[in-house]
């Protein structure tokens, strides 16, 4: 089946803020433009990713702001958004006594696939796709975490969604599953908006055409991964040091990450010029982008710059 260019829709988030009743500000004036394709939302736990995802999935209300999906007002035309939405939440439950086939069939009707024949076909293909076909008659209560996650994927893919929101989807998958799942997502992204929230940098670096880094309710960076990496070129330095050296280094330098490597510490730091002292310049990767952004070495000026690219 061919998807025409007319289906290339984008999601626009304008001035969205959300403060919970207990005073936690989950989102602070978020502005994002999300084009078709796979979009990575990267941030540590508690950054506000899930809140934003739920808002996009019509399940939560922002205090202010507007969100549009193509022509649709996401906050007001919820019903229409849901008709084209696939949502895989970070945590969800199932009815332990239902079988995967029955429950998927149930959701197929909820997603408007009322024709019996096409529903049967859809259910079968999705179960095969998620490799659950052989266990379709089993009770979901007996599924492992990964199988459950795949079931969730199958539900999210029902009805050929134009907006697919996947919240920390790779957490329960083993490495091989993860790769293939992400591949699938990126292919879907060819004619849909796919938003992937994650705290794992690789998820984004490998597949996403666009990304944003979010922390404490703020968007710290919005960029295309390659460009963001390119922007750091010549600024990331590496050195293997001992434990005692670290505290001295911390006072003088912009350390962005410290990793243990066979008993010693591998330090990456951000510097426009060579910090000397045996530091070597490295080719930055997305992880460096993430950490330097989180550490506050990427300024909002850069962000604006990069958005305008």
């Amino acid at each position, binding site marked *: *089946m061919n998807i025409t260019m007319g289906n290339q829709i984008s999601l626009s988030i304008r001035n969205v803020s959300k403060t919970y*009743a207990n005073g936690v500000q989950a989102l602070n004036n978020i502005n994002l433009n999300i084009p078709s394709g796979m979009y990575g939302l990267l941030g540590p736990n508690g950054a506000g990713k899930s809140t934003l995802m*739920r808002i996009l*999935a*019509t*399940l*939560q*209300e922002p205090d202010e702001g507007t969100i549009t999906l193509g022509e649709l007002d996401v*906050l007001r035309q*919820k*019903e229409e958004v*849901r*008709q084209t*939405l696939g*949502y*895989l*939440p970070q*945590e*969800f*439950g*199932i*009815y*332990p*006594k239902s079988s995967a086939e029955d429950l998927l069939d*149930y*959701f197929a*009707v*909820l*997603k*408007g*696939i*009322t024709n019996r024949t*096409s*529903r049967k*076909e*859809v259910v079968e*293909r*999705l179960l*095969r*796709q998620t490799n659950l076909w*052989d*266990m379709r008659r089993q009770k979901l*209560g*007996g*599924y*492992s975490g*990964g*199988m459950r996650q795949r079931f*969730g994927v199958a*539900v*999210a893919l029902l*009805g*050929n969604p134009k907006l697919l929101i996947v919240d920390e989807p790779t957490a329960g998958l083993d490495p091989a*599953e993860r790769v*293939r799942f992400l*591949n*699938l997502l990126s*292919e*879907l992204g*060819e004619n849909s908006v796919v938003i992937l929230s994650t705290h794992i940098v690789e998820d984004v670096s490998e597949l996403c055409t666009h990304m944003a880094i979010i922390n404490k309710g703020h968007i710290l960076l919005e960029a295309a991964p390659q460009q963001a990496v390119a922007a750091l070129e010549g600024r990331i330095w590496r050195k293997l040091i001992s434990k005692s050296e670290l505290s001295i280094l911390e006072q003088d330098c912009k350390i962005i990450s410290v990793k243990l490597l066979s008993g010693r510490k591998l330090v990456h730091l951000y510097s426009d010029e060579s910090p000397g002292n045996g530091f070597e310049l490295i080719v930055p990767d997305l992880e460096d982008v993430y950490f330097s952004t989180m550490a506050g070495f990427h300024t909002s000026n850069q962000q604006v710059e990069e958005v305008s690219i």
Partner: protein
Amino acid sequence: MKFRKIFHLEFAYQLRNAATWLYFMVVAGLAFLWFIGNYLHDARDGYFLLNAPIVIAAVAVLCFQLWLLVGASVAGDAAARDVHTRMYSLTYTAPASKAEYLGGRFLAAFLLNGIVLLSILLGTLFALYFSGVEAEVLGPFRPAAYLTTFIYIILPNTFIVTAIQFSLAALTRQAMVSYLGGALLFVAAFILGQVLQDEGEWGNLIDPISFTPIMSQLSNEWSPLEKNIRLLVLEGSLLLNRLIWLGIALVMLTFTYFRFQFTYPISGDRKQQKPQQAALEWLKWRTSESLPQVRGAFGFSTQLRQLRLISMKSFLQLAKGITGLPLLAVLAILMGFALPGNLKAKGVPLLPRTDFVLDTLIEPVASLDFFWIIIALLIIYYAGELVWRERESGLSEIANAAPVPEWVLFLSRFLALSLGLVLWLVFLMLTGMVAQTVMGAVTIEIGLYLQVLFGLQLVDCLLFAMLALFVHVLVNHKFVGHLVALLIFGGSIFATNLGVEHKLLIFGASPGWSYTDMVGFGASLAPWLWFKLYWLAWALLLAVVARLLWVRGREGSLISRIHLAKNRFTRSTVLVAATSVGSILLLGSFIFYNTNVLNDYLSTSEAMEQRAEYEKRYRQYNDRPQPRLTRTNLHVEIYPEQREAEIRGIYQLVNYSTVAIDSIHLSTAAGVRTSKIAFDRPAKQVLADNELGHQIYVLSELLQPGDSLQLSFEVNAKARGFSNSGADASVMANSSNFRNYEWMPAIGYQDYRELDDVGSRNKYGLSPRPATPSLYDEAAHKDSPFSERISFEAVVGTAGDQTVVAPGALRRSWITGSRRYFHYVTDAPIRNEYNFFSANYAVHEGKWRDVAIQIYYDPGQTGNLERMVRSIQASLDYYTQQFDPYPHRQIRFVTYSGYSFGNHAAPINITAGEGFFLLNPKDDPRGFDLVTAVVAHEVAHQWWGNQLDPAHVEGAGLLSESLAWYSAMGMLEDKYGPEQLQRLQSFLREEYKNPRTRAAVPLLQANDWYQNYRKGPFALYALSQYIGKEKMNSALQRLIDKNRSGKSPQPTSLDLYRELKSVTPDSLQYLLQDLFEKNTFWELGTKQVLAKQIKLNNWQVMLEIQARKFMVDSIGVETKVPLNDWVEVVVFAPAKANQSQGEVLYQKKHLINSDKQTITVMVQRKPARAGIDPDNLLIDWELKDNMVEVQFEKSAH
């Protein structure tokens, strides 16, 4: 240390929980309401002091009872929260021992519940001392009263209940099961305890919270004196009960300790749990090219499809569980088993007719019927499950993002619940039909089943279901939702007590419907329907609001949901909401127009206020001489279809007093239009109080003693629409029945309209007086309502196909146009109290001498006609012979629509509800013919009540009811044999059980059912056995002779006593006094009987007798009195086969004294049973020890 930390965390966690404090407030509020709403009234009436220890204890158990149903989440959460919140992986693996973990949690739950229930005492203190209760109803403040309640009741109860709820929740790892535990304990306390309370100790012991024993002590086990001062003491069955249940609680906790394991809680059945190895196979993700490109189609038809699917899914989840269809089926089967036992009236089986069966099975959802309470609770529970299941399972995280509109989500839950209720009603229908078949029903009216169950009852169920769902959606907290729904449920049951009476204000309320053979649903259906339509409109509005506030996603607070709701408004929402609001307004106005404009709406308190006002204004005229009614001449037109009657009447009034009368006081009836009041001499109206119904006319010329005057009037009684209590049933298309005093004017002040009970008299500022005037209040002997003797004549017209019955002989009947007319005239004066009946009657006729016997019955209800005629004949024969001739030439039983079993003996015409004709005495396992006995009793009222018309003072019941039963006893013995007499006596013993306390006024001042219907007849019978029936009845004959005229003063029990005294020999005067003048009890017993054969045909029988006699006054003080009484000693031979009693070998009255004594008698044949007072003539509450089996000594030779 760990224990303390675990305890502290749990305790602090729940202490911060709003639900805990909600329970606290609710329980405190309940305690307050029980005092102020319920017991204050009794205390004002003088039954007890409001702060008496037993009242405090009673309120405590009442509150506890309700808390059982709502408060289980404290224990349940403490035991199972870790599983629900999936915290168990942390807590179970922490290095705390089972004892520390469970112990800490339990102790916290126990303490929290203790705090919640301490609020009972708080509510109590507040009600007693800070709500302005007057000091007169309070005794001194006694800390011991509160302490005993706390230590003996509240504390152990809390422990027992918490332990059981905690154990159940810990073992099943589900907090909800603690609710089940609470419900089971509720059943044990409320249902089993009540059912078994007559089975001696069992009822007391099975009750986990001591509800039954304390309530029965308060109701009547303790004497008034004890109620006010006696403290609870931990002894006897209370102690045993506490020990048993504390034991059970400890066993449960121990069992839980051993059974509980810190393991992964596995849900579902284990066998199917193993994931197949295939799960670990290399994944075959395909590219998106292979993804199905099918897109959903959206529109109304999809939504309907989704509605169907979600409804079915929700329903099946609910139905499959053990609390779903299986429980409903068990309930239906239980109801089926209970049915034959319930399908009885006064122990007599009813015919297994469909309408009776339905009447037994069906109650409104908001009622106090055992089974329907369970259904209501289940509806609330189901509603909670339906609203919460998806969220609790976590599926909502996905499902909420699916393109399903909120109305489908809400409506599907409602449909699932509705489907469950429909199936419940199907179960009920099957139950009823099976029971009918088993009981040998001839026809099973399936149409009626369908109409009643699915036309009427279902509406009631659905309204409540909608309310429960709405509450759960609105509250958005499962346990609090249950609590709120339960409070609303309780509130609607007790709405009247809480002062909310108008059914427009009580959700789902309506006047009840009734169905009888004679009129079908009659006029009861229309008001029911209007009210239900009104509530359906409300239900629609609730549904709209529930849809708008349906929780979807994370926005749970009401404010954010209201915010969201703004976006959910669509055109169809507005349309539906507008339709429902419009319907509410329209239907509400229509109902209001009916209840408050067409009919006078008076709340109970307004009605009482009016009665008080009537007394305040017009009591002053009570003693003013008024002419007396001597003749009534009426023309009555009954229009059954229009539910209207018109009466034109002329009263002949005579001044029997010794003074000239200057003014006539006329009291007119409420609810009818009285007009054209005129006298046959000049008179001027000086007062017209239509509201209170009092008119005064001043005669321009005095009415001299002996002179008479005529009063004419017209009354129009038209049922206008319906009132808050339903449609007036006086005139209906198929059956009309009204009494003279309900509509027609009466002469003088009517003191029966006064408020009687002490509390309300006090409240409305009336001077205190006893509820019933004292026997020794001479002024009250002068007159009583309806006591005039009148000659009566009436022409009554009705619809062409109906027959009218009125007092007197039917002189003529004719047809004019489409209407039939009947002319009735009495041939002897009657009491001024009579009914008019009109219906399509069939007549069964009989004759006794020159008296025509007529039974007007609904065609088809023929089962008991012959039996009734025979009893009437025998009764007329016996009473005429024993007492006095029957004064009229007719006697009639007339039926009217209704399945109540009360009969009323107006002069000549005795009314009997349809139900009386549908009794099935043939199948009575006791072999007792209640129909014959009741007919005898009612016919006896033609003497006792209608000829001898007692003054309205204490002891009046002795002259009417007691004498009527005494007469019926004599008639049955004489005409039907001693067996029937014994069966009647054992029926009366069964029907009117001994009260729990012996404290009572003497029989001469009889003022309750027990005295009127049980003690009175048996005392009269005993006396007749001692002095002889002839003497006794001659005294009664003289009594009636002297009082037949109906002239003032009217007879009282003192007149009866005087006559009885005159025929009682001196040697038995003591007995007369003991029976009537004092409240005397005997305790007679035969310890053992030894017999030996002296020679052939000569046996010596030695009876070892123990006896005592004592008096109890009205507040319960016992005084022992010396015994020196004549008591019958009797020896029976062995009973032959098919006899219950052997031949009498010896029977003689002996003088028995208080000591232990041995009586030796000689008999000629071998004895078998012997003892004293075999017929239980003397008032001895222990019946069984009078007679014993004879034991044999070795014979002399």
